[in-house]
């Protein structure tokens, strides 16, 4: 039996025939949020472990990128809004049922925290830096003593932020590709891995890079496992989710996803990192760049493909 649907008198821009209301801004926002979460998590972790000296890039220097990433991310979100001048409405209520709302609030907490964190290390980065005002000097001095407490807060908020980047999508029951709770951990792990790649790229210290590469290999393995899990879940679920999975298993996103995300963005860099650990000489920026690129493509693909999937009726 064949079934055909005609919709007459309806051709709304960005909705018909396929929903395409979120463009590059949202995936970029999720991507930058993920990187920021990754860097913050490891900065917090190694501070708590008392490894500020050995892991200087992780703890001190890479976090300078976090506020930049977050501000750029928020700016991308802002660009996505169609009624921008009412942006402040986001911050007049807290709506726990809406991931968009608690995500915006999380960013409101995370961004100043990451700025303060970097401020406490500014003097080490720029030795003759002068805060000029005594009050600022004292405040920064106060926070410098509270780094451990801040590290705990950063780790916690990094996990919230990382999971949020996935939950933002998975909360939409109407889009079968997104409507799976695996997206939370998957985006978190992917965010941690892209954060690590940034740190590895920046670090000049061999031991630090070694430790980070080892962690990264584990994270990539977890990510690959979660991706397999994602598809197993889809293929054993309802018709709409099977259809969503088929976009990646022969459908229009197959090549982009498997070649750029899975092979070039995960598997290949993991192999390079393993070889590098075994003593082969591989410029470290190659796997780092591949991971960063793969993470970006992953978010673009997920956002775009998800909007195509829908209920059938």
């Amino acid at each position: 039996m064949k079934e055909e649907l005609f919709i007459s008198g309806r051709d709304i821009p960005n909705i018909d025939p396929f929903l395409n209301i979120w463009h590059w801004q949202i995936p970029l926002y999720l991507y930058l949020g993920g990187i920021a979460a990754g860097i913050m998590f490891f900065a917090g972790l190694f501070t708590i472990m008392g490894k500020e000296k050995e892991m200087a890039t992780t703890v001190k220097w890479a976090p300078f990128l976090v506020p930049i990433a977050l501000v750029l991310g928020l700016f991308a979100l802002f660009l996505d809004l169609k009624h921008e001048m009412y942006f402040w409405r986001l911050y007049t209520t807290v709506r726990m049922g809406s991931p968009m709302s608690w995500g915006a609030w999380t960013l409101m907490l995370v961004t100043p925290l990451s700025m303060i964190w970097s401020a406490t290390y500014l003097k080490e980065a720029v030795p003759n830096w002068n805060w000029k005002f005594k009050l600022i000097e004292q405040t920064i001095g106060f926070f410098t003593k509270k780094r451990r407490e801040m590290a705990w807060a950063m780790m916690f908020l990094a996990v919230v932020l990382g999971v949020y980047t996935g939950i933002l999508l998975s909360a939409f029951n109407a889009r079968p590709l997104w409507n799976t709770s695996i997206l939370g951990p998957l985006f978190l792990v992917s965010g941690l891995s892209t954060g690590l790649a940034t740190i590895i790229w920046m670090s000049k210290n061999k031991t630090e890079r070694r430790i980070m590469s080892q962690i990264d290999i584990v994270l990539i393995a977890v990510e690959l496992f979660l991706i397999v899990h994602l598809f197993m879940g889809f293929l054993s679920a309802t018709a709409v989710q099977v259809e969503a999975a088929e976009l990646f298993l022969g459908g229009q996103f197959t090549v982009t996803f498997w070649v750029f995300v899975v092979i070039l963005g995960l598997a290949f860099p993991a192999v390079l990192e393993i070889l590098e650990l075994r003593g082969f000489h591989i410029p470290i920026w190659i796997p780092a760049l591949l991971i960063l690129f793969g993470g970006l493509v992953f978010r673009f693909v997920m956002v775009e493909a998800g909007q195509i999937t829908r209920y059938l009726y």
Partner: protein
Amino acid sequence: MRYAMAIDTKKCVGCSDCVVACQTENNVPHGYCRDWIVENVSGAYPIVEIELRSERCNHCENAPCVRCCPTGASHTVEGGIVMVTHDECIGCGACIQSCPYDARYSHPDGYVDKCTFCQHRLEKGQNTACVDVCPTKCLHFGDIEDPYSDVSLALKNRSWKVLAPEAGTKPQLYFLT
């Protein structure tokens, strides 16, 4: 009280009068619409069947668009009507993503817009514009909790379905089959 609509798919001829009536009544910008007609053709020639449906927002009882709205612009008012307050809406598009029926659109002015069950007319005791204009009288509207309302009577002796009940939104458009 809960407003609902019953759409007689056996009587609808797909003339799109309801679409035009809505566009006129609600000043819907050119190229957009709050209701539309779906023709569902099924079967294998020569035995085919056509189902005509006048669709719009389902004013869901469990509305995901209200839940996911970060500002509270999307909200439910008396009678279960789902409304959007224009100057609270930031145009983030979350509600558009959350609607299984693609019933919302982004208005050229930035906010999100959709069917209001002509709330401004209901307040004056009138029917929705689409119901009033339908030449075949295939749209029935009213309070579904009142057993003698037009919609309840229409549903009484007929078989009906709702669209994508598995999405779990408890939609309030009933299609008479």
